[in-house]
């Protein structure tokens, strides 16, 4: 059965939060999160859904984003200072 985008996004959100709960110091780009935080746990969703999940978590203050000088960004559990 095919999941809709909303379900996939929520699954990605849960997996990201679960990863950060177990590894509170972890940080990576959306690509790395899709491949390693989610992919290795069998959560195989399109990168667009991972992107939307990260945006939603960012909006809710559950994660923070640090922009890298090459234009990419890493996501991690909230902490102070940057990048």
């Amino acid at each position, binding site marked *: 059965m095919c999941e809709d985008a909303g379900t996939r996004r929520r699954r990605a959100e849960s997996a990201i939060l679960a990863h950060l709960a177990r590894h509170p110091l972890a940080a990576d780009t959306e690509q790395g999160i899709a491949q390693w935080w989610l992919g290795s746990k069998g959560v195989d969703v399109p990168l667009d859904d991972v992107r939307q999940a990260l945006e939603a978590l960012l909006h809710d203050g559950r994660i923070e984003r640090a922009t890298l000088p090459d234009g990419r960004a890493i996501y991690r559990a909230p902490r102070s*200072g*940057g990048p």
Partner: protein
Amino acid sequence: MLSERSPQLVGRAPAFLQALTLIERMARYDAPVLIVGETGTGKELAARAIHYESERRDAPFVPLNCGAVPETLIESELFGCERGAFTDARQARSGLIAAAEGGTLFLDELDSLPLRAQVSLLRFLQDFRYRPVGGTRECCGDVRVVAAASPRLHELLETGAFRDDLAFRLNVLLLEMPPLRDRPGDARVLAEYFIARHARQHALPPRALAPGCVDWIARYAWPGNVRELDNRVQRALMLSDGDELDLRPCATNSISATGAPRSDGAVSAGDLRAFNDARDEAMLHFERSYLEQLMHSAHGNVTHAARLAGKERRALGKLLKKHGLERDAFDSPN
């Protein structure tokens, strides 16, 4: 086994399995790593595999494309800066080494690192101590540096444009990611993997490779390597119908309307992809077109072609091999 934890690392060819074995071993130790390989061979994927298989897996993985940062900013971006260190430094700021604390700093396109930054990085790698730009306090960084470079690094070392002492410091552990043309059988394995994956992700019906394109997949040189194959599968899946999928250019003429770079280098907003991917693809098109014209002009004589192009014969030979161009395919004057 590594590939079970990283479903992205797909392949069965001996050269690829050897790279996987090395990745597993390199993950056990904490020394710097230098990954070399052509564009699209999976250097960043390999760097992440080393990080996530290592003791540092719970800490950050921070990637930086050295070629995308202005020369004047790269040191402050790596090491941070104190307030007033330069005109725009209105407040003290930590750098990427601090962001990667406890984890891995991945320096991609290392061959683009300016000479001055090479000196700073070398100094840091000697004792993992550094001073933020404009500051006097000394900081200590607990990071593992994994760097990636294109094969052009060898040329830069020969001409002195890249410091050999930095290269020696980084290549304690050297990993070469093999080009797809040196991985017999893997193009088909990967094509089937990408078809299944993208079809599943985009809720498309499963499709099989068209029998007619299987030989073509094995013969094609794949100059853009795994990334090119992945892009080709995605485009074919989205732009064609039927039970079978044909990746050959002749079968997907419509693909060029969205996939290939325009001759003026521009892309429409809907076609925008990551800068590096678009640049790499444009570079591949340029290389192939240039080499074909060059070899025609030189009537297939590689020595003459190298002279015309102002390149070393060996370097030109490598480029021809990368694009699967055989000298016999070009007209001989006799």
